[in-house]
């Protein structure tokens, strides 16, 4: 059986943000996968397919740790399902021994996004840290994501 090997530098991932899609970035140096911006594309499956493919590649390297940060201001209903699928795939990494940490950031006063983070807690087994950010901090990080 042919085993696919993945070089570390092949794991760098940057999907630039658009008006409808978030920045998705993985840094090998800090083993951190970030989703920043908004996820409201019409073709959700088409947008997230490369991310799912990339996650399979990451799984082959059996990473020691993985931190996932989600900082999203708007998520459409179909993206909710796609993000959930991604988090379930990350759970499989955890089951295979990867130390995983999930962080869900929301803008303070945005009760719906806080509730969304709490809904994730019901839906996946991995604990999710839910952190409130001030409007300024939230905007700074989402604005910075547009530079990519």
């Amino acid at each position, binding site marked *: 059986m042919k085993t696919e090997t993945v070089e570390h530098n092949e794991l760098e991932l940057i999907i630039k943000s658009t008006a409808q899609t978030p920045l998705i970035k993985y840094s090998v140096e800090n083993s951190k996968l970030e989703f920043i911006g908004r996820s409201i594309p019409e073709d959700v499956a088409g947008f997230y397919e490369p991310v799912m493919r990339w996650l399979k590649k990451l799984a082959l390297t059996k990473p020691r740790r993985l931190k996932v940060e989600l900082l999203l201001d*708007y998520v459409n209903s179909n993206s909710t*399902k796609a993000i959930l699928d991604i988090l379930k795939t990350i759970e499989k990494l955890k089951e295979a021994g990867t130390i995983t940490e999930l962080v869900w950031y929301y803008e303070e006063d*945005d009760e719906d996004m806080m509730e969304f983070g709490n809904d994730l807690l019901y839906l996946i087994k991995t604990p999710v840290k839910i952190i409130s950010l001030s409007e300024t901090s939230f905007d700074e990080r989402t604005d910075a994501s547009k530079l990519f």
Partner: protein
Amino acid sequence: MTVMDSFCNTDPYTIMTCVQRQRLLFSFSGNPSSDLNASIIDHIEKQLRTTEDPLRVQKRVVNIVIEALQNMYHHQHPLEDCFTGDGSTILMVGRTSGGYIVTTGNYVDNDSELSLDQRLRELEILSDIELRERHVAALKSGLRTKKGAGLGLIEMARRSNNNIQHKLTKISNKLSFFSLHIEIKF
């Protein structure tokens, strides 16, 4: 008198005063596309940001507009004899003293009318907690179809605390006009 005659005979000032009286922030009629949806969302979001209204309300309005536009985008129905081309839809966003109103309308097949009506009637009687449970259950079950999962309807109902009304007007043996009236209270 045709619709066009009626349109041509209407004084723009009459339309303008009507728009102002109704505190209409935005209205659109035509065919949704990906680029157009992005522009509409951006425009409405920027308009709301200029208000002093609570962030929670502003975001709920934008979220509902996102779901409504995408719902119409995926379910637009070709209309052969419509001058605006295929799948005419309408979207309006207005502000009242109590909150915001989002109104949408699009043509649907009479075949899908029944399931749409049934799904909305089922949602209408749910409390906020029951809606949340329904949403989480739908996500857990992996409910999804090519054109969406009805998740959009649940999402809109949740974001409006179930202040959502629908109406189906039969147009012909093939078509009905599906209207949604969603209220987002302060």
